[in-house]
C-alpha cells in the first residue's frame, strides 16, 4: 500500500524537490505546508502515514518544527514524524521521541541526498526509527564526567548504528563483525543501560535514548 506523506518546510524549492523525490520513490505526497500551523491542520484533515518536518519554520524560524512534531506525535500517534534539521541537539531528540520510540526520525537535513535516506524514510514510515548517527557522537563527545553506564568504544559504535535503525546483520556488515558478536555487544549494552526486560523493537532506540539521557 502506498504510504501517504505530508511535507512541511518553508524552503519551497527544496520542499517541492523532496516531494518529487519521494513521489519517485513510490510515496504519495498528499500535502505540503509552509509552517507549523498549516501542517497541524493538514495532518488533522488528511491523516497521512508520515510527516517530514523541517525544524526551522516561520514565524520565528526557531523551533516551530520541533514543537509541531511533538504536538503531532501526541495528537496523532498513528502519524510517523521525520524531523529534519540543520544541526542536531540531543535534547531535541529526547523531546521529540518522548517515551514512545516508534515511527520517529531525527536527521540532518543534508542526509536527504544520502543513498540511505530513502531507507531511513521507509523505516520511520513503517513504525521504526531513524536517528542521525551524529547525535550519538555528539552526545558521546560531551559526556565525560559520569563514569556510570560507560560503554566500550566498540559498544558505542554498535549503539550509534542501532540509533540509526540498522539491523544486527547490517551492523555486523558495517563493522566487519559476526552477527553473533554484534548480538553480544547489544546484550551488553542493554545490560549496562538496564534495559534487559524491554521488548526488542523498543529496546534498540530506548537504548540510545537512555544512554543519551544518562548524560
Amino acid at each position: 500500500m502506498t504510504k501517504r506523506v505530508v511535507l512541511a518546510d518553508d524552503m519551497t524549492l527544496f520542499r517541492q524537490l523532496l516531494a518529487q523525490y519521494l513521489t519517485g520513490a513510490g510515496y504519495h505526497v498528499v500535502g505540503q505546508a509552509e509552517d507549523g500551523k498549516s501542517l497541524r491542520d493538514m495532518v488533522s484533515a488528511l491523516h497521512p502515514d508520515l510527516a517530514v518536518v523541517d525544524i526551522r519554520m516561520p514565524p520565528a524560524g526557531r523551533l516551530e518544527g520541533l514543537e509541531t512534531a511533538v504536538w503531532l506525535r501526541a495528537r496523532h500517534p498513528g502519524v510517523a514524524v521525520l524531523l529534519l534539521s540543520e544541526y542536531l541537539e540531543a535534547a531535541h531528540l529526547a523531546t521529540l521521541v518522548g517515551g514512545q520510540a516508534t515511527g520517529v526520525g531525527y536527521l540532518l537535513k543534508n542526509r536527504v541526498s544520502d543513498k540511505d535516506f530513502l531507507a531511513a524514510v521507509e523505516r520511520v514510515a513503517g513504525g521504526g526509527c531513524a536517528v542521525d548517527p551524529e547525535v550519538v557522537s555528539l552526545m558521546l563527545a560531551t559526556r565525560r564526567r559520569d563514569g556510570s553506564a560507560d560503554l566500550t568504544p566498540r559498544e558505542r559504535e554498535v549503539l550509534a548504528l542501532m540509533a540509526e535503525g540498522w539491523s544486527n546483520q547490517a551492523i555486523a556488515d558495517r563493522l566487519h563483525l559476526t552477527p553473533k558478536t554484534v548480538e553480544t555487544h547489544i546484550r551488553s549494552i542493554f545490560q549496562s543501560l538496564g534495559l534487559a526486560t524491554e521488548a526488542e523493537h523498543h529496546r534498540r532506540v530506548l537504548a540510545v535514548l537512555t544512554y543519551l539521557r544518562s548524560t
Partner: protein
Amino acid sequence: MDSARRGDGGWTPLLVVLLAAVGVVIGAVAVTLKVADGSHPWSDTVLSGLSGSLFLLAGVVTHLRRPGNRTGLLMMVVGVAFFAEDLQLSTDPAVFSAGLLFVHASTPAIVHLVLAFPHGRLPTTAARVLTATTYAVVYGYTALRVLTYDSTDFHRPENLLLAADRPDLLATATDVLDAVGVLIAAGVVLTLVRRFRAADPGLRAALAPVLLIAFIGGIAALAGSAVGGRHSLYPVLAPVYRVAFCAWPLAFLAGALWTRPRRAVIADLLIAAGRPDATGGLRDTLAVALRDPSLRLGRWRPDAGGFVDDRGALVSAGTVLRDREGRPLGALSRTEVPWEDVRTAEAVAALAALVLDNERLAVEARERLAEVRASRARLVSAADDERRRVERDLHDGAQQQLVVLALMLRMARHRFDELPERDPVLADRLDQCAARLDEALAALRELAHGIHPAVLTEAGLVPALGALAARSPRPVDVEAADLPDLPAPVAATAYFVAAEAVTNALKHARAETIRVAVRCEPGTLHVSVHDDGVGGADPAGGTGLVGLRDRVGALDGTLEIRGGPAGGTVVHAALPLEER
C-alpha cells in the same frame, strides 16, 4: 571672582587714590601749621599727626584687603577730616577761612565709621538717622559759625566768609550743639552697646578692640573734662585720651581684618569638600566654614539662564565661580557684605569652583561613559544581528540551493541506476559530484556556523556549547547547571567566549582536555574555560582575545585570562544579566 562686583564701582580705586593724596597734602599742611602755630606742645603735634596718618594708612590697608567693604574708605575720610580741622590754624585768610568749614569735620566721619563698622554700611535705620543727624548738626553749626564768626576779634586772620558779626547767635548755636552733641554721643554709645550684646562671637571679636579703645579714650576725655584743665590729674588724662585716639585706627584695622585664621577656614573646607556627599552639601560646608548662614550657592543652569540653588530657586550672582575656561559654574550670594579677609574669600570661592567643576566633570564623565557603553552595546548587538542575518541568508540561499542540488544529483543517480546500460565512468563522475557537493555543503555549514551558530539562536547557549564540544577533536566537557533565559547578547557573548577559548586551547595550547563551565549567580553569568595545555596565553595579544574583551566590555562584563592552578589556562568571563 568678579572684581567689579566686589567694589562699589569702577571709581572706587580713584577715590582711594584721591583721598590718600588729599590726606597726605592736608596732613603735611596741618602738621606744618601746627608746628608754626607754636601754641601746641610737641607731643600733641606728633600724636595728632600720627593719628591722622594712621587713620589714612589703616584705611588704605583695610580697603586693599576688603575692597568690597567701605570701612577702609570711611577710615580714610576720618583721617582727611582730622587733618582738615587744623587748617584753621593757618595765618593765610583763605586757608583759614576754608579751615573754618572743617573745624569739626572728624566728628560726623567718626560717628559714621563707628556705626558702620565693621560691615562698612549703616545696618539700621536708627544708625542712618543718627549719622545723618550728626552730619547735619555739625555742618549746620559749622556753616552758621563761618557766617557769623568775626575772627579778627580773636586775633586771627580775617574770615573771608563772614556775613554778619553775631556772637550772640553763635553762642546760642554752641549751646545747642553741646546739648545735641551729648544726645548724639549717648545714641552712639547705646547703639554700640546694643550691637555688641547682639553680636555673634565673630562680630564681637571685630568690635571689641574698637570699643575698648573708645571706652578708654572716652573715660579719659570725660574725666579730663570733669576735673578741668588745671587739675593735677589733667596732664595724665589728656595723653591717655590722645594716645587712645592714636591707637584707634589700629583697633579699626585689627577689627576690620580680624577673621578666623585663613588656614583653619580652608582646612575645614577641604576636609568637608572631600567627603562623598560634598557636592550636595557644598552650600552648608561653605556656610559653616565662613560662619555665614545667609550664604547661598547656585549652580549654573544654562536652561534657567542663571544660578539655581538646591531648592530650585534663582540665586543672584554675588560672586560668580568660573572654570578655567571662564565658563560660569555657580555663584555665591551673601546677604552680608563679606568681611573676611579677601584672600580667604578668594580661596573659598576657588575651592567652591573646584568642587563645582569637579562635580560637573563627574556628571559629564558619567553621561559620556553611559553613552559610550550604550553605543558599544548597540554596536555589539548590531553586529550580532548582522551575523544572524548573514547566517539566515546563507541558510535560506546558498545552503538551500546546495541541498537542492545534492538532492537533484541523488535523483539523477537513482535514475541512472535504473538504466539498463550503465556507464561506469559516468557513475563515477556522478559520485564524485555528490562527494564534492557534500564537501561544499559541509564547508558552507561550517562557515554559517562560524558566523552565528543556528543552534545558538534556535536552541540556546547550552545546546550550542554541546555542539561546540561535539565538533572538537579533543574531549570538551560542558558543565552547565540550570540556566535562566538569557538575553540574546549575553548568550551570544558567552558562546563566543567559550568558542574562542576552546579554539585557542586546541590550536595554541595543545590541550588534551578542556572544561567549559557555565553557571549563573544572581545578576551575573559566569563562563569559564579551563584547559590542560601549555598555557602562556597572552591576554593582550591576539585579535581573538582583544575582540572578546571588547565584546565582554560592551556588556559591562569582565574577561580574565590567567594560568590555571595546575597549569594550563583559565579564561573566565563574568557577564551582568541585569540592565544597569
